[in-house]
Every structure is written in structure tokens, then in C-alpha cells.
């Protein structure tokens, strides 16, 4: 291909990205304008007179919800990895009776609609006092992350060289010791990928958040935005500033861990 063709392709690619990401641009643009400026038509294409008042309001009204989501997301990551990593290793490596059936079950449970989970977990949670609680949200969000993490970790762990495991076993390591000191370090990237996506899924969850929290004690950021949008549709800079803040984990993930992202999408099936 000639150089001009290549440069032309790059130009077309940039235009495609700009058009496709226009909504994201407008989110940032609106978040930096004043409420008054946003009531003028047509809207300014660029924040020529930027103001941080939207962000000030976002942090004032939604800051605690961001912290709530952070706690839930981190808790989900820990719980998910603790449950999924050993299981994934067993499903990848051990010849246990019923392994194949278990993998099938893990694949199938991913397809249970979230609304069914919300509907049936609500009375269960209500009975055992898990509504409006961090443990309840972490457990609910883990239904989104555990199957995903098991499948993606299993794929990677079946690629660990058998000699490594054999060597540890010959040295007298038990199964758990082998897993902890050989398999996990070797699969560090896969564990990071599973952890990052678990964080993102829990952070983005809206259905469980809106079903299992009443807003009295804890309120995740997704519910915060939902109520924010519903209440004050004239206060768009505050809403968009909150949206920008809630996008930070996704942006960080894309910028710092891009190579894991494609692996996550192709490896784990569907986003909830």
C-alpha cells in the first residue's frame, strides 16, 4: 500500500472515531459549561468559558455515592477472585467427575436475565437483612462477575505449562501451595483482567443497585445519576460532571490496560 493510501486510511479512521465518540465529547463539553450557557440555543460546540461549578455540585451531591460504588466494586473484586480463581484452576486442570457439566452450568447461568435475579433475590435479601447493605450489593454484583471470571481464568489457566506444576508437585508442594505460589503468579495478567472487569461490572451495575437500595443508607453512583437526571433536567452540567466522574474507571481501564480489554471482551462473553 502506498504512503498516501495509508495516511488517507488514518484520516478516515480519525473521522470515524470522532463521529462515533461524539456523545462522549458532548458529555465532557456540557460538564464544563455553566447552567445558564446550557439554556442557550444552539449549545456551544466548545467550552470557551469553562467552569468547574458542575463538578463542584457533582462532588457535593454525588461524592458519597461515588465512594459507595467504590467500596462495592472493590468488595466484589475481592470476593469474585477468591471464589473464582481456585475454581477456574480446578476446572482447567483437575480431572474431577462432573467438570464438564460444571463448566456448562457456569456458561448457562450467565444467561439468566438480571431482572429474574433482582426479582427473586429481593424477597430473599429482605428476609435475611441484606437490603441496603454492602454485603448484599457485593453478593448480588458477584452474580455478574463470578461466571465471567471463572470462564476467563479457566481459559488462561489451562495454558500454564504442565512442567511448572509438575515441578512444584515433585518438590512436595500440596495442591493449594502449588496454586498459590506457582499458578497464580504465572497467571497474573489473567487475574488482573478478571479483577478489572469485575470492578467495572460492579461499578456499572444499575439494576441490582436500584432494586436493593432504597437510598436511605447507601446509594451507588448509578442510582445517584438516575435520580439526578430524573429530578433536575435543567441542571445538565451537574449531571454531566457526575457522568464524567462515573466514567473515570472505564477511561483508566482503556488507557492503561487496553491489551487486557480485548481479551476481556472476547474471553468472557457478554456484558450485563
Amino acid at each position: 500500500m502506498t504512503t498516501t493510501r495509508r495516511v488517507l486510511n488514518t484520516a478516515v479512521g480519525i473521522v470515524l472515531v470522532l463521529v462515533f465518540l461524539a456523545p462522549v465529547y458532548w458529555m465532557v463539553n456540557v460538564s464544563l459549561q455553566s447552567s445558564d450557557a446550557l439554556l442557550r440555543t444552539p449549545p456551544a460546540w466548545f467550552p470557551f468559558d469553562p467552569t468547574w461549578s458542575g463538578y463542584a455540585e457533582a462532588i457535593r451531591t454525588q461524592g458519597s455515592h461515588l465512594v459507595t460504588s467504590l467500596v462495592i466494586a472493590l468488595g466484589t473484586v475481592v470476593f469474585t477472585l477468591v471464589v473464582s480463581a481456585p475454581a477456574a484452576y480446578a476446572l482447567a486442570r483437575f480431572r474431577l467427575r462432573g467438570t464438564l457439566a460444571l463448566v456448562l452450568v457456569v456458561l448457562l447461568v450467565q444467561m439468566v436475565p438480571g431482572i429474574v435475579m433482582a426479582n427473586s433475590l429481593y424477597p430473599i435479601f429482605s428476609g435475611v437483612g441484606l437490603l441496603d447493605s454492602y454485603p448484599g450489593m457485593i453478593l448480588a454484583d458477584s452474580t455478574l462477575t463470578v461466571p465471567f471470571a471463572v470462564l476467563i481464568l479457566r481459559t488462561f489457566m489451562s495454558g500454564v505449562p504442565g512442567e511448572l506444576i509438575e515441578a512444584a508437585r515433585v518438590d512436595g508442594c500440596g495442591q493449594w501451595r502449588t496454586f498459590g505460589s506457582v499458578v497464580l503468579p504465572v497467571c497474573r495478567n489473567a487475574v488482573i483482567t478478571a479483577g478489572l472487569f469485575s470492578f467495572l461490572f460492579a461499578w456499572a451495575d444499575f439494576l441490582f443497585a436500584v432494586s436493593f437500595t432504597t437510598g436511605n443508607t447507601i446509594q451507588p453512583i448509578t442510582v445517584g445519576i438516575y435520580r439526578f437526571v430524573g429530578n433536575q433536567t435543567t441542571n445538565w452540567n451537574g449531571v454531566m460532571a457526575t457522568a464524567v466522574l462515573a466514567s473515570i474507571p472505564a477511561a483508566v481501564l482503556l488507557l492503561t490496560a487496553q491489551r487486557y480489554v480485548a481479551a476481556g471482551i472476547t474471553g468472557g462473553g457478554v456484558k450485563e
Partner: protein
Amino acid sequence: MTTNTRTTSGTSGPRATRRKPGGNREGLVKWTFVLPMMLFLLLFFCYPVLRNLAMSFQQWTVASFYEGGSPFVGLDNYIALVTDPIFGGAVLNTALFTAGSLSFQFVIGLGLAVFFQRRFPLSGTLRGLMLLPWLLPLVVSGAVFRWIYDEGFGVLNQLLLGLHLISDPIPWLSSTQYALTSAIIANIWVGVPFNLVILHSGLQAVPASLYEAAALDGAGPWQRFRMITLPLLRPVIAIVLMLGLIYTLKVFDMIMILTGGGPANASETLTTWSFALSFEEFDFGQGAAVGNLLIVVALVFALLYLRSIRNTFSSGGERG
């Protein structure tokens, strides 16, 4: 991972398992690896799904939560659903939402995947940036589209007015005529990256030599696409459509934040309706019944999906 779009494949390397005397204890230790996950699946999938089935045959009210009464009512919930005037609309909306989202996500995703197959500077970076909508929380994307669609101040109407394509602002979200279409467009935007990534990795697996041979034989770009790309991509296409379908069926966040299913149920799908029945009207029995309908539909497509990946699946799994 570039040529591999499945969740289940993997190289079956040498096994860690060794048969030793005392293998029974060894076997027990191995089970401790899967036990926490099995407990979790039992408590948080099997039990809720069965519970949901039971709930659909019970009458639930607000009082059920305080006094505990949820009497068995047989098929009453299902009969109430089918005879509800909302039912037909919700089924139709779900079908339209799914078909509309899927077809455009797929065509746009495939177009972009073919484009990004070309080698040019920044190709990888630009393709990576395209993933952003998939990574954003749906509520965030929904909030952004809520502003874009705003009748008075949103950029979409201002743009269309400025270009003289319309003479009056369109009430994108508040008219029964446009609400569903608006939700579909927003959902297409969210779903394109997923199609792009999976189709792109599928395209990487098509040998370049085939294109070269076809080009030598005088095949044009369109012919090469139709005669080589599409046939070889068919398994990947099947997977991307199947997963997209299962995913789109249960979309909740986007519709909820854009329209809440309204106005006048114009954008109500089975998922949002189920939520409204349970969490707004506290009729968890009917909500459960709608949920079970969704499970049946999802299950049919899930089985089709499992059948389509069966080949890769059996090569990666170990049997016990």
C-alpha cells in the same frame, strides 16, 4: 486471543493430576477448589431461579413482606399477564428493540471491523478508542443520550434544525412515536464495540493468501468480501449474533434511564415491565412470571449458542 473468540477453548496441556497412593484424600483436596464456587452458584443462581419459578405461582403484595402471606394461585399470574393490554405491546417492543439493535450493531460493527483490518498508522489505537462506549456504565451513556435527545436544548434537535432537516424540534423521548426508536439508537451505539471486537478478531483468522489468490483471479473488493470474508466468518457471526441477542433481550438500564418504559408504555419491554410490576406495583408474582417468559426465550437461544460453540468446547474441556 486474536483468533480465539470463545470462552471455553484452551490448550489441553499436560495434566497436573497424578495418581498416588492416598489419592482419595487428594481428590477431596481438589474438591475444595471448586466448593466455594459451587456453593455460590447454588445459593445465588439455582435457588433464586427456582424461587422465581415458585413466586410466579404465588400472589405477592406489599403485605407479603411484612406478614409473610403469599398464597398459591396457580396460573393466575400468567393469565393476568396475557390478558393485560400492556402484554402485546411489550412483546412487540422487545422484538423490535432486539431486532433493531442487533441488525444495526452488527452491520456497523462489521463495517468498522473490515475497515480496521487495513494496516495504517494508529489503526490499533483508534480501534481501541472505539471500545469506550462498551466500557462506560450504561447509566452514564443513558444520561448523555438523555441530554442529546432533550427537546429544547439537546444537541440533536439543534443540529437537525440548524441543517434545516426539520422545522420543529422532535420530542425524541416524550412522544409515543419516537421513544422506542430513540432507545434503540442509543443502544446501537453501546453495542457496536462488542461486534467490532469479536468480528475483528474473527477477520484476523482469515488467511491473507486467500485474498491474494482471489485478487489474482480478478475478484474485486465486494466479491472478495462476499465470497471469502462472509463464508469464513460465519461461525463468528453466529456467535456474535447469539450473544448479542441474549444480551439485548435483557437490556434494562438504557430504557429505564431514557424513558422508564414510557410514555404510555411506548418503550416498555418485557424486562422493564417485569421491573415495574415487581418494584413499582409490588406484584412480585406477576413480575416473576414475566421474568420466566424471558428465561424461556433466553434458554432457547442459549442452547443454540452452546450448540454452535460445541466443537471448540469439547476440545478444551477435560472430562472426569
